[in-house]
């Protein structure tokens, strides 16, 4: 059977898919650019308007979409193992809520875009720490308690967001709504988030088999030599950081974090050693495709990318579910 050989094959196929998605993202738009010109702009340092559009506009945006999708899918897969709940997504513990409160506050008082990003990241971390502190409380740390605390904090953040939306009436409302729906057009600096994604994978891959064991129950995992408590802290911190980086970069894009890990689980099985990198690649590819579609389908208008991820993800998911009734 040689599990790793199958894993290598699946990952290679997903890499090719990601490459194709990038090719489309870089060539499609108001100004169609051929694959050959895209290649020249990227690797041969070509000059001219087309090359500038590829390098300055489309590449950062495509990378932002890919990184955000990868971050959310990886974070979702980790949350599902952490909470041992297949319905968990990266936002279930209130991280996106905290980020939204931070970002909307910054927009409300009229801060510069990079401060909005910083504020979103700060809000996400604040929510993470709040949930962790409250759930940890007396030292016991059951996932039910963690989940309930997260849901309550998320509900509180939701109320704060609604309050802020109702307070503004001018153009700030538009930017708030766009932030909430997720928007890659303003993401001109995707490289730090790419670093976070890379570090996340490097940290989590060595413990991927431990996660397989953890999915079989905490006591069984402990008896099999997994340091359960330490692993759960690591999962929580990592999933939170990944999610915070994603929502800071693009905003609260829905469905990717829930559906992509599921999709990959149905397609390639539940071995975390394959599932985690596969979900990362698939999430990135899906969001790159969705974002490219969002800016080209009704050009020059742009659709919120979160709407498209839902439109693509939900039917595909339902199809796989009906085909594979387990």
């Amino acid at each position, binding site marked *: 059977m*040689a599990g790793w050989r199958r894993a290598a094959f699946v990952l290679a196929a997903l890499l090719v898919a990601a490459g194709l998605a990038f090719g489309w993202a870089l060539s499609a738009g108001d100004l169609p650019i051929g694959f050959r010109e895209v290649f020249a702009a990227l690797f041969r340092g070509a000059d001219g308007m087309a090359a500038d559009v590829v390098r300055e506009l489309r590449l950062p945006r495509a990378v932002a979409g890919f990184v955000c999708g990868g971050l959310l899918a990886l974070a979702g897969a980790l949350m599902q193992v952490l909470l*041992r*709940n297949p319905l968990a997504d990266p936002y279930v513990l209130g991280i996106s809520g905290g980020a939204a409160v931070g970002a909307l506050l910054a927009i409300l008082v009229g801060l510069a875009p990079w401060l909005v990003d910083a504020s979103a990241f700060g809000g996400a971390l604040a929510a993470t720490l709040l949930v962790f502190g409250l759930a940890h409380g007396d030292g016991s740390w059951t996932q039910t308690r963690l989940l309930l605390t997260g849901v309550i904090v998320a509900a509180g953040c939701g109320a704060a967001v609604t309050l802020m939306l109702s307070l503004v009436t001018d153009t700030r409302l538009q930017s708030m709504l766009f932030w909430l729906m997720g928007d890659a057009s303003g993401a001109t600096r995707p490289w730090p988030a790419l670093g976070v994604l890379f570090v996340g994978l490097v940290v989590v891959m060595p413990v991927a088999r431990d996660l397989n064991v953890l999915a079989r*129950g905490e*006591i069984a995992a402990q*008896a099999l030599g*997994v340091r359960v408590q330490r692993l759960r802290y690591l999962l929580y911190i990592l999933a939170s950081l990944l999610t915070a980086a994603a929502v800071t970069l693009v905003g609260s894009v829905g469905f990717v974090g829930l559906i992509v890990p599921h999709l990959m689980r149905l397609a390639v099985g539940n071995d975390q050693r394959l599932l985690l990198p596969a979900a990362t690649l698939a999430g990135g590819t899906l969001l790159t495709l969705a974002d490219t579609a969002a800016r080209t389908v009704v050009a020059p208008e742009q659709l919120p990318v979160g709407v498209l991820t839902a439109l693509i993800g939900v039917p595909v998911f339902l199809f796989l579910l009906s085909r594979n009734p*387990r």
Partner: protein
Amino acid sequence: MAAPDASLVLLEAERLALQVGERWLCCEFSLRLAAGECLVLLGPNGAGKTTLLHTLAGLRAPTVGAVRLGGRPYAEWDSLAAARFRGLLAQQQPDHFSASVLQTALIGRHPHLGRWGWESAADVALARAALGELGLADFAERDILNLSGGERQRVSIATLLTQAPQLFLLDEPTNHLDLHYQIAVLDLFARLKGAGRGVVMVLHDINLAARFADHVILLDGKGGVLAGTSAEILQAEHLGRAFDHPIRRLDADGRTLFIPD
């Protein structure tokens, strides 16, 4: 695996006492399990059998006293090395995610593989053999979420066999099993015991305990503990007191049976 030295002491507990919240589950007692022996923990519901078993497995620290695995306290064991020496069959195995029966059994190889290791053909052969032992040879590709309770219990036992420890700690191994598999599973562990492994198990059925135990620890749920050989502890009077119900002993066809009055 080579047959371990039969004189090897696998597990020792010294002046052990366990407290959960305000309640003392057992007063100080000691136990010693050598290779080739079987110890059964008996007692009424909530007497602390599982807590005691988890303490013996090193998953929780004793309130008083010390537990030594293979002569060394758990603190001196690397967690993976300990997992190669002793294996635990937990009472509940929550399965929220689907996985094939073979994949699940292969989880038992975790402590034997390196950080980046993947299961080899030998590991798969071991897992298939374990599934065969439990009558699950044809189930390898089935999804565990579609199995019955008894079949899942057998998968859990196969996972433990795949782990291949020296010392088996079993929390109600006969749970969910039909009559045939209750005896088959206990016979299987009796064979492993004969091959020099050690077995500690929690049982509810006194008659199964009488059939398979060398040593018995009887918890009465009020902090009292009786520890000794099977013949010493399994007496109607002790059992009746611990379970708070009169128990009668019958001898038939060379077998001893205990039935509630």
